[in-house]
């Protein structure tokens, strides 16, 4: 039986981008307003899951050819490196640093090493969620 999923597919094509943009926003806004790497990661993963539901795993794998295990590993390394970098500045492990900069376009912006750590969290969450869904989904 062929299911009619034209509506789902058409909507997904638009909605996915909205979710992804929102995820990016949530990720960067996290330090001051609700959000952060964990939610951002989950949102990104949910966008990809939506793609998978609307199309199928093989197609999605072609569109987004990431190795999610690799992504998890990179995320973990990034988080650990951010935490560990502080010992090279002779401060205790996991001391964050931040400052305010004037960037073109953005104006006064705060750059925070916690964002790097959060990026690690983001990558791990996306990586692990997609690893789990992909492996279980592909299993026959």
């Amino acid at each position: 039986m062929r299911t009619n999923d034209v509506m789902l597919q058409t909507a997904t094509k638009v909605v996915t981008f909205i979710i992804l943009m929102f995820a990016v926003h949530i990720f960067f806004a996290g330090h001051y307003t609700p959000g952060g790497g964990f939610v951002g990661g989950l949102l990104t993963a949910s966008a990809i899951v939506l793609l998978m539901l609307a199309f199928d795993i093989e197609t999605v794998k072609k569109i987004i050819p990431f190795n999610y295990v690799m992504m998890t590993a990179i995320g973990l390394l990034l988080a650990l490196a951010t935490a560990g970098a502080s010992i090279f500045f002779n401060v205790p492990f996991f001391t964050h640093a931040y400052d305010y900069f004037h960037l073109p376009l953005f104006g006064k912006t705060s750059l925070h090493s916690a964002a790097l750590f959060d990026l690690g969290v983001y990558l791990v969450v996306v990586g692990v969620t997609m690893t789990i869904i992909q492996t279980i989904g592909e299993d026959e």
Partner: protein
Amino acid sequence: MSFVFLIFLPVLAALFVPLLFKNLRQIHTGWFVLLVPVILFIYYATLLPTTAEGGQLVSSFQWIPSLDIAIVSYIDGLSLLFSLLITGIGALVVLYSIFYLDKSREQLHNFYVYLMMFMTAMLGVVQSDHLISLYLFWELTSISSFLLIGYWYTRDRSRFGALKSMMITVFGGLMMLGGFVLLSIMGNTYSIRELIAQAPDLASHSFFTWALILVLLGAFTKSAQFPFYIWLPDAMEAPTPVSAYLHSATMVKAGLYLVARFTPIFAVSGTWMWLVAGVGLFTMFWGSFFALKQKDLKAILAFSTVSQLGLIMSLLGASAAGFHIEDASHTVFKYAAFAAIFHLINHATFKGSLFMVAGIVDHETGTRDIRKLGGLMSLMPITFTIAMIGSFSMAGLPPFNGFLSKEMFLTAMISLTEFDFFSMDVWGLLFPILAWIGSVFTFIYSFFFVFHTFAGKHKPDLLPKKAHEAPIGMLVSPAFLALLVLVIFFIPNQVGDWLIKPAVVAIQPFLYVAPADVDIHVSAWHGVNPEFWMTLGIFLIGGLLFWTLRKWQRAYDRFPDNLTLNRLYDNFMYLSEGGANRFSALYMTGFIRSYLVYMFGFLVVIVLSTLFLTNAFVIRTDNLTPIGFYELVVLLALVAGTITILIAKSRLIAIIALGAVGYSVALFFVIFRAPDLALTQLVIETISVALFLLAFYHLPKNSKTVERLGFKLGNAVIALGVGVTMTLVALSAHSQKVLPSISEFYKETVYSEAGGGNIVNVILVDYRGFDTLFEIAVLGIAGIAIITMIKLRLSRKVGQHENK
């Protein structure tokens, strides 16, 4: 220069080994690795003039300052001698391994990484002045030894030997850690030097004997003393370069180092002297006696190593006598410590060369079984010469270095008969007698080793390969060691001034101030004295027994096999494994429902009893807020969803109902103004519903006939219990504020200290960053576990095949 970092040079170099092995296949990786011990040896050699004058060098860096843990490299005569042995023999062994291990067939990257790891560990052991770092390096030697013994991990015997050595040495290591902890409590310091300075006070402490015994357990297991020696023969499954390096020249001497290093602290005790000297001497006798039972060249050498280690151990024990004799540096008791160090050097030279010879014989004939070997003298003349020099030195014949140290050993043992403390006057006579018997057997097995391999009739049809002389590169290292055996005989006093006396000062700091005070002159001829007659007796009786060896060697086969220590170990391992399995099988049913019952049962019991025992159960009704309309609606939805899950017939409905429960919780977060939680909960719910759908797709179809589960009282009690417990905990938590809420602290510092605005996120990445780090690590592990379970399992067809 901060030479403490040199300890880590080998392990840093090891990082490059896999790269070199992968990218430069045509060059044997060993050539690069060889640089490391050579550089270190040259550097340590430049420190010799300092220690020869009695100087010490200290270099350290803080590791965990808050726990007072540092890595301190303390170089005095003793640690420098060991460092030179480790790097010197290490260089020779690496050179030898280049020709022993084939570059195209062997996994050289593994081998050299483990070897470099060991070198760092061993240097760390002998240079550490800090008890905790000493312990860490000590265990690292056990681990690298485990990896090296199991290098050919496809062989059963290798894995068995590796595990056995690890079980025994790590057991000893843990005991030693206990001893170290006691010592640090007694002296209130981790520094060995500071402990030695307080030695007289420590002796009266009630922990003293315990610390002594625990530290000795560490030393005895590592140095393969009776009854712990059983791991060493099984460790011979390692590649021969490893046996030559770890299991004869360095690692097994870590125990001797430990005893030597702690002698100034413990020597005042009679227990120490009796244990070290007694166990050592008995081990010497036992090892030499059973060496003749062995059929494998390396097994003979293993038992011989056990015996020689025992000899050195007994000398270290005897050196403790110097603490109880007035003005011992001018009496006959001064020889023991000197002889111990001297024999330690000599043993490294002759036993190293002998192991390499055994490796060559194995490599060129294909067997190490002494019954199949013989008559190799004419085929392998150079190897034979090296073997002869090594064996004769081991047997204590002149003109080889073993003769000199063996003489001093006998002197030291005879001196014990004159010692009249600790009931030595009664039992002292045993020492020279056991020493003499052990020496006779040493003489016999040395001859057995060399003549049954190289003399006699050649049996080419029994050998897997056609025997021929080894390539020149393989002969360089053993030949160099054999040369040292000869050279040391002729210049013993130079060796004494540069290496031995500085080390003796470290063992007996209360007797000597500087190496020059050690008034010992080694000479080959002492005139006609008891030692001379004993040596003559050893040669005569030993020669006679070797002559008639074939007649009485069979008697060894009469020894019952099931009464050995090995059998004891096997049974212990078998029973502990079986026992642990049976115990686990009692509660590990394999059903998740049983585990849930355990978990929830314990939760209820522990939480409820804590609640009532600490009188924490309080309900107050004066600080409640009224329930709003929306809250009531969401609550009803939540309860309805939960009930639907339980009674739903189709899985799909159950999943959707579960989703509804999750979304209702998210709504609660919205109502109570927790946008972060609400957002996260919503997304998580979405993804987990998708996951459930995927997972349920794999489950078998629901059967048409619905079986009704009977009412289970136990489950009902636990279900009710969990509900009641959680309710009570929630009510009590709400009713009392024992501690001020931490949220005020967050509010105050979130901008000023952490530079953020969203407390929830700042908690995640900053305040409690450690939690997050570990959580994502757990997430990663879970992901890998799921891949392993699903992708890497055996395909079903293979599984069925196996079951047939």
